[in-house]
């Protein structure tokens, strides 16, 4: 039972990280109907920026995080203006392919800027842990869950009540109709990229601190596991992103803890998110909380 509770906690925390990454995907999807494959690159870049500002330049951690969020928002807006804006009104898929190109580039740029191996990101909570009965709670996990919950709440309010958020939802539904209503499609795109990029350093920091603080250019790899989370929950639902994240996180940790079947091989937890995603999609193609779409000819 203790093992189960411990794994449950760990799984939910990992799910929180997936949710943080997936929320970035959802924002851009909500505005433009496109997958942003570069989000994983943003997560890596964001984590390295926090390292640069905080650990390397010695700024206080929270200041470094906020600074990284601002810089990343600018990077997101810049990239949007440079390569995504010309695609307004073009098939969504071209945008998806462009973000794939960006992913290739960002990953290598991170490698070329931070060449030193073995960089370590310091966080105020470090490797701290508390005991709750028989279960160990890592402070990093706690902070992950808190920030995922906070971001989710912020996104919910933003898309439900703010003019910009509503405009972004309208843009995703139908760019032309939204433009006819006086919504600036370009501005919706810009804001969505800024918001998604600004969320990336938070996800990056949580991800790195979960692994003990070691930075590596491959941490954006986790974004590939956030895809199943996002699809599982429903592409256009922020709540779905969190639900999907937690489910995938739990599945991964539980299979790590219990699924010790020799013929499945080691590290089977890397495959589990995708298998789970495919199974759920076969049952509900729009995801658990996504909007059901009716297609007309």
């Amino acid at each position, binding site marked *: 039972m203790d093992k189960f509770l411990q794994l449950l906690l760990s799984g939910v925390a990992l799910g929180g990280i997936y949710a943080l990454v997936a929320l970035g995907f959802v924002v851009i999807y909500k505005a433009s109907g496109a997958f942003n494959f570069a989000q994983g690159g943003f997560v890596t870049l964001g984590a390295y920026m926090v390292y640069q500002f905080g650990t390397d330049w010695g700024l206080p951690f929270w200041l470094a995080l906020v600074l990284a969020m601002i810089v990343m928002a600018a990077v997101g807006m810049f990239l949007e203006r440079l390569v995504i804006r010309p695609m307004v009104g073009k098939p*969504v898929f071209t945008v998806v392919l462009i973000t794939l190109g960006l992913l290739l580039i960002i990953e290598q740029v991170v490698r070329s800027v931070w060449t030193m191996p073995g960089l370590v990101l310091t966080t105020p909570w470090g490797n701290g842990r508390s005991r709750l009965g028989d279960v160990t709670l890592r402070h990093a996990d706690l902070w992950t869950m808190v920030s995922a919950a906070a971001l989710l709440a912020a996104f919910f309010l933003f898309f439900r009540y703010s003019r910009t958020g509503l405009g972004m939802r309208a843009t995703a539904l139908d760019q032309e109709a939204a433009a006819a209503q006086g919504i600036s499609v370009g501005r919706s795109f810009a804001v969505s990229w800024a918001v998604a990029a600004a969320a990336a350093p938070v996800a990056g920091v949580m991800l790195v601190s979960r692994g003990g603080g070691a930075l590596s250019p491959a941490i954006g790899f986790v974004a590939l596991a956030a895809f199943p989370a996002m699809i599982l929950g429903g592409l256009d639902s922020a709540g779905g992103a969190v639900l999907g994240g937690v489910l995938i996180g739990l599945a991964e940790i539980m299979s790590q803890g219990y699924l010790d079947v020799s013929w499945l091989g080691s590290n089977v937890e890397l495959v589990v998110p995708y298998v789970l995603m495919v199974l759920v999609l076969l049952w509900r193609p729009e995801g658990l909380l996504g909007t059901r779409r009716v297609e007309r000819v």
Partner: protein
Amino acid sequence: MSRGFLRRMLPSPDPTRSAGGSGTAVNPLLPSAGAKVMAALTVAGVVICPLVLKDPFWITVLGNAGTFAVAALGLSLLTGFCGQVSLGHAAFLTVGGYLVAFFGAGWGWPLPAWLALAAATGAVIGALVGPFALRFKGNYLVVVTLALIFVVTHVARNWEGFTGGFDGISTNRAPLAVGGLDFGDMSAFGQRLDRQQGLFYLSWILVGISALVVRNLVRSRPGRAMQAIRDRDLAAEVIGVSNARYKIAAFAISSAMASAAGAVYAVGLRFITPNEPLAELFLSIRFVAIIIVGGMGTVSGAIVGALLLGPLPELVKEFVSVLDVTVPGLGRPLVSDTVASEPLFSTSAFSEVLFGLLLVLALLFQPQGIAGLVRSLRIRRAGARQARTAGEGH
């Protein structure tokens, strides 16, 4: 989502070409005199290439470009003609690679056997993926096909009896003989050719076969059905085109080509080890870049794209000295494999960046790729000629 899904990237109808004259096929294999000349020149070039090019580097590079072209033709059929986008293409190459290592190099199966096995296995796995394409479209399908990469890399790492696990497995002893013709030790026009030269011929024979298969497919009934599905799958279903049959067929054929290409590629590499999933993803993106830069929805585009982009990593490595220039202001070399000199990019990193840049630039400025560029030039020239003859008439 489905409306105009890939339309901007596809060739526009050609106004200079009249459909169906008296007694001529509606869509001949090689539609114009220019196309016939180009096809003949390509064949001649392929035959002569290994005889005049003595540098093993170039033979290897161009041979690999051939295997890339085979796989790219498969992806072009799937994406360019049937509208199904896949990021799992690299997984099929990996499958083909391990099959040739185990059955070809390990058990000594002859060339036709291991090649057929690779293609058949690719087709079966592709046909299993096909039904997912019935349920998922666009964005969703892209991510679902990503799952393939994870499953295949997982199997490659863990099924040690078959794949050699992390240590990998050699493909070096795979037989390359068909009847009396041994690609591993052949002679042509009085010259003895080594293994790399033989592999070059083998790859480009496969390119010829694949190009013929794709070209014949797309100009006949199944191909038209696939293109109808690409343009509007629901509308196609309504007029009686079975989405299930043709999507599954497209996946099966495309995967068979990728798997066969992967087998030949692995023989050229002499050894195969499990890739990181991320590296496998990048390889898949590379094929997407190839068909987009070459020109989506055209056979020649996939081959040209593979020729230009396929060898990029090898070319960057070979000509690293040209790129090993100090970047002003930073004092670090742009590209180098000497870690001590703190280069901005290693050669492999630089070629990834190039692929990313080419993909983005092509989509921004030339979404119909090189094939589209050639096409629009020809249309413009034909338009000018028409204007001239019309002027003379008056």
